[in-house]
């Protein structure tokens, strides 16, 4: 099945190019990536609903990740969206367990190789369908 990803920069991290770079790489991995630019949780979830996304990708430079990241998961749950939520960017090591506890499936640092992001997405999405 074709995997569709909605990718957003969380909040106001305007200068962060990571989201676009990862989007291009996931495209090259054969996925469809709908790029939203900067958006807040409510709008990100709405876009995922409209696009029928299997995955919500959140990119952050840090600072807002502990509040806005879990909020995406929470709103998605409230609205009945069962997309995988993943996060990437500059995130302190100590915060990762907190994010996972809040329902973020995986957190990728800036050095993560695209293959591991892509294979994580594939295995999780295929699992949820089976």
């Amino acid at each position, binding site marked *: 099945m074709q995997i569709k990803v909605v990718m957003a920069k969380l909040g106001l991290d305007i200068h962060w190019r990571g989201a676009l770079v990862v989007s291009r790489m996931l*495209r090259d991995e054969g996925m469809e990536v709908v790029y*939203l630019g900067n958006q807040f949780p409510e709008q990100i979830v709405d*876009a995922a609903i409209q696009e029928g996304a299997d995955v919500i990708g959140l990119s952050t430079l840090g600072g807002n990740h502990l509040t806005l990241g879990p909020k995406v998961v929470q709103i998605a749950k409230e609205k009945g969206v069962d997309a995988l939520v993943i996060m990437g960017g500059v995130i302190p090591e100590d915060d990762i367990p907190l994010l996972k506890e809040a329902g973020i499936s995986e957190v990728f640092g800036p050095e993560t190789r695209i293959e591991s992001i892509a294979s994580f997405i594939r295995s999780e999405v295929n699992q949820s369908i089976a």
Partner: protein
Amino acid sequence: MEDLIGSFEKKDNVSLGKMLKEVENQTPLSLEILKLSSFRKGKAHIIGVTGPPGSGKSTLVGKMCKKLATMDLRIGVVCVDPTSPFTKGALLGDRIRMQELAKLPNVFIKSLATRGNLGGLASSTADIVQVLDAYEMDVILIETVGVGQIEFDVLGVADTVLLVSVPGLGDTLQTLKAGIMEIADIYVINQADRPGADESVKDLNLMVKESGKREWSPPIHKTVATQDSGIDELIHDITAHKKYLERSGLWKEKRQTRNVTRLYSMIESLLAQRVEDHINREESLKAKVQDVMKGERDPYTTSHEIVDRLIAKHNSYQYGG
């Protein structure tokens, strides 16, 4: 099944999103969704927006939606991207230009890629548009790049087609003249803040005049989408075009023609599939195809033989032979 009918009645975005996902992925359920929605469609005004990449289509669609949303209308947007015909992956960026719409509850945006099958893009767009229509959207905007055959097919479902260009593209338009003249109902010169807009309008005016007198003479608009300028006038003419379609009977006629065109294209693809299956099942036919491949047998005779045989076989089933 009952859940499905229920979600047509509920008209909330979450169930609409789920239905469109089924249709986009062509799941077994999607056939049921399409069957149901085919009786509920027909009321939405379907507007196609086409033109070269970078001309400002997404920005313009965003501004038009913003305006239409204040008129208390339900709006669907379908962004079709035919730019990656050979790969499965795609980067769909039209929503970045429509960020203002994110907070409007009455706007629903869907991005579509080719999925490596350019030929199927027109029918998958038509399917998505049909479901949005059945969900009682008042207006559906389809954005697609370019003015080639694929866009022509994609825009087959549109009632009103806008061709968006920028100043200085006059010559390009001239060379594409024949196709464009038939397809565009309204011309837009966007980025009119850049030099040469008035000349472009003049050129287009000439082109429209040269093409002879028609019942609907395509108006030409100057817009600056980034500054919200010219949008009201544009919407005014889009509405005027809808009224013209209704008055002239074309509104109904187009829908009926579309229904039949869809039927025939479905018959065609079903038949093509059946014929292929038939050939693959019979060694003698596979051998004939091989001979055609090597140039030892002519395709004219062979195609007749294969089709005649399939039909003969079908008839003998029918009559118990």
